[in-house]
């Protein structure tokens, strides 16, 4: 499955439903879900919906964290 993650094309093996659960995707990237926020195709996924969320072929995914910054 091809995804655009943080602006870059990524290839991931999809499950038999042609999708990947969000927690699974984060796991494959070795990302700690507690430290990030995720938007799929521009929609921010609430933390409590992570478990139910899935990514599909061609989805644009943004995974962010907080960093030092002022203005």
């Amino acid at each position, binding site marked *: 499955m091809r995804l655009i993650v*943080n602006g870059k094309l990524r290839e991931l093996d999809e499950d038999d439903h042609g999708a990947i659960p969000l927690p699974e995707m984060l796991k494959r990237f070795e990302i700690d879900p507690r430290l990030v926020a995720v938007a799929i195709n521009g929609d921010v996924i609430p933390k409590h919906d992570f478990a139910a969320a899935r990514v599909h072929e061609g989805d644009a995914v943004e995974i962010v964290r907080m960093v030092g910054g002022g203005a």
Partner: protein
Amino acid sequence: MSDLLTVAGKEFSSRLFLGTGKYASPEQTVAAIEASGTQLVTVAIRRLDLDNPNARTELDYIDWSRHSVLPNTAGCKTVDEALLTARLGRSVTGSTWVKLEVIPDPKYLLPDPIGTLRAAEQLLSEGFVVLPYIHADPVLAKHLEEAGCATVMPLGSAIGSGQGILTLHEIKIIIENANVPVVVDAGIGAPSDAALAMEIGADAVLINTAVAKAQDPVLMAGAMKKAVEAGREAYLAGRIAAKPFASASSPVEGVAVIAKSGA
């Protein structure tokens, strides 16, 4: 002296908000935050580096039990970018507060009054506590207050420029008219700038570059803490009015005179 600042129901004994960008090291960031006595630190929201997803940042060193976090929308040029970043910031920080910045211009980083108001109205409808970064425009400040923003954050001069409070006159008008806290954001270069902002009645100041890029950021952080307190106390103490003429501070009468014997 109990003199608390209340923003959206949250009380602060420190009136210095500190940014966390541009420090030389995480240790320096933490030390400066400590020295500043700040209770509210701003953070930016950025893409995770997928090739290094568990790299620690300065923020991992901060004791979040003692400092509230204020995610910003720095870097957002449009309303849509600011909305997405604000929502991501809320998700990652767990805070509904947002320092709203809609900044189309890269050279002077001046905010967009139209886009900022539009984004603020949307975010307020989504339950955010909005602290908008704005040009020192008193009418715009009133619009944002009436829209329901928790504060207004007028700029003193361009972000990171250290030019001080070039907009002093307009900020005085904003303070005169405001019913929400006025936080002077951007442009402060030295403690005298911070003190001046507080002396004219600002409720707080937000500083980042002037501390982070000082030759000794930790020492400067402490200096800013004292300056903000000094300015606030001066505001409360009631400064003397400036007069065009002099006024002796020693008694005018009774100076000894030279006189020779009358004999």
